[in-house]
């Protein structure tokens, strides 16, 4: 069981900044994210895109913003459960919560802050009949262990970086790699495209374009896929695995079933006070929440995180008196023993 003061669901910019604001109040944070890396949308969807409305930054790349936030929160030693999705929540008698992930990891905290953005990133699935029947029976959307494909026949569908990169990687692992894409052109990095071309010329990747997988064959296990190629009769490619790699899209997912008030695919919160949800002790901050006048902006998420932490502190320590302190005055005292402080003025007499 992982225990912490504030359990943050979602390691995007809002979730990461929460660690800082909580840290100033000596509260420890743990973050859960379905993605294998912190950063949320900034890391997954647009790391190389500039953002122009972070106060104090005329422009900053989304990926750099995440790196900066990670550096900013480092003194507060956040811990992470990455690559797992928060699945269920149980409220204990003392008002604290246990959140369990899809992999069974349990987390215990008096405060839960949902900073889940638009939801957890799930693979985009092709619209094929009986697709779900073959999931984990030869159809995989994420490659966890490439060794599974050793000496097996693999069909990959998609035209982006992951389709190209995995085709290249598996060309040396699988007995047969077929890459199917709807276009002749690929969207990936130039050297990946060139490498696939080279492997195709060497006969190590069977490239079928412009074509689409239209059906899956097999009783219980995948034995082949039906392919339609422009200008040709439909044909079958025998295979042991079919791996559609069409990117990820965010879904609110299980959080939607936690008994929280949902409006417009977002969690309703009290924005007049502290961004708490209808369940006391559970807050929702950043893009995942909604209230009158809500704007899905990173800068708004930062503000919401700040107010939420003050409320969380009062909830954990109802009898302690506290007033917010400026970092310029109080500095930043890390849990790791580091201390950042404004330099003291030098006083020296002139004689």
């Amino acid at each position, binding site marked *: 069981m992982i225990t912490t003061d504030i359990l943050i669901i979602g390691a995007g910019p809002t979730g990461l900044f929460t660690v800082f604001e909580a840290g100033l109040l000596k509260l420890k944070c743990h973050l859960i994210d379905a993605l294998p890396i912190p950063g949320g949308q900034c890391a997954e*969807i647009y790391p190389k895109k500039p953002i122009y409305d972070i106060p104090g930054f005329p422009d900053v790349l989304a990926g750099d913003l995440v790196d900066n936030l990670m550096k900013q929160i480092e003194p507060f030693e956040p811990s992470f459960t990455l690559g797992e999705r928060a699945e269920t929540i149980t409220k204990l008698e003392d008002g604290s919560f246990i959140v369990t992930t899809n992999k069974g990891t349990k987390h215990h905290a008096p405060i839960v802050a949902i900073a889940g953005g*638009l939801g957890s990133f799930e693979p985009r699935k092709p*619209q094929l009949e009986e697709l779900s029947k073959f999931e984990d029976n030869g159809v995989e959307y994420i490659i966890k262990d490439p060794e599974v494909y050793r000496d097996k026949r693999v069909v990959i569908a998609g*035209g982006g970086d992951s389709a190209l990169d995995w085709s290249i990687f598996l060309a040396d692992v699988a007995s047969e790699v077929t890459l199917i894409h709807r276009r002749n052109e690929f*969207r990936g990095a130039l050297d990946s495209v060139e490498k696939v071309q080279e492997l195709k010329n060497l006969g190590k990747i069977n490239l079928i374009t412009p074509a689409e997988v239209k059906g899956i064959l097999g009783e219980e296990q995948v034995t082949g896929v039906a392919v339609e190629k422009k200008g040709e009769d439909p044909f079958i490619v025998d295979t042991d695995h079919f791996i559609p790699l069409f990117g990820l*899209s965010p879904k*609110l997912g299980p959080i939607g079933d936690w008994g929280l008030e949902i409006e*417009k695919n*977002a969690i309703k919160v009290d924005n007049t006070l502290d961004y708490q949800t209808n369940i006391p002790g559970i807050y929702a901050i950043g893009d995942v929440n909604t209230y009158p006048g809500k704007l899905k902006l990173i800068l708004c998420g930062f503000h919401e995180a700040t107010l939420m932490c003050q409320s969380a502190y009062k909830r954990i320590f109802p009898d302690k008196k506290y007033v917010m302190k400026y970092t310029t005055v109080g500095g930043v005292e890390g849990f790791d023993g580091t201390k950042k402080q404004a330099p003291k003025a030098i006083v020296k007499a002139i004689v």
Partner: protein
Amino acid sequence: MQDVTVYITDREGVQHEVLAPTDMAMNLMEVVRSYELAPEGTIGVCGGMAMCASCQCYITSDHQLNEMEYDEDAMLAEAFHVQENSRLSCQIPITEQLNGLKLTIAQEV
């Protein structure tokens, strides 16, 4: 001209006649969202960067639109339910030429 009229058919098949401003640097996806013609969280998920295809639409009138750029074309190459007249509505800026445009929002994936 400040506003143009656009006819948007939502995912339930209902057509809406809406006014779209030409002076706010808006795109079609944002017009759909501003009139709440598709549930929040199911359209414009990436914010309008041609990176998610949640705003795919079918253009059903014969208006001359801005040319598709590489990002949009590449995204549509991986999207689902793509047809000859598919566009990402986030990549179509509202201009006076769009007056009378008709489009249908593609179903959610």
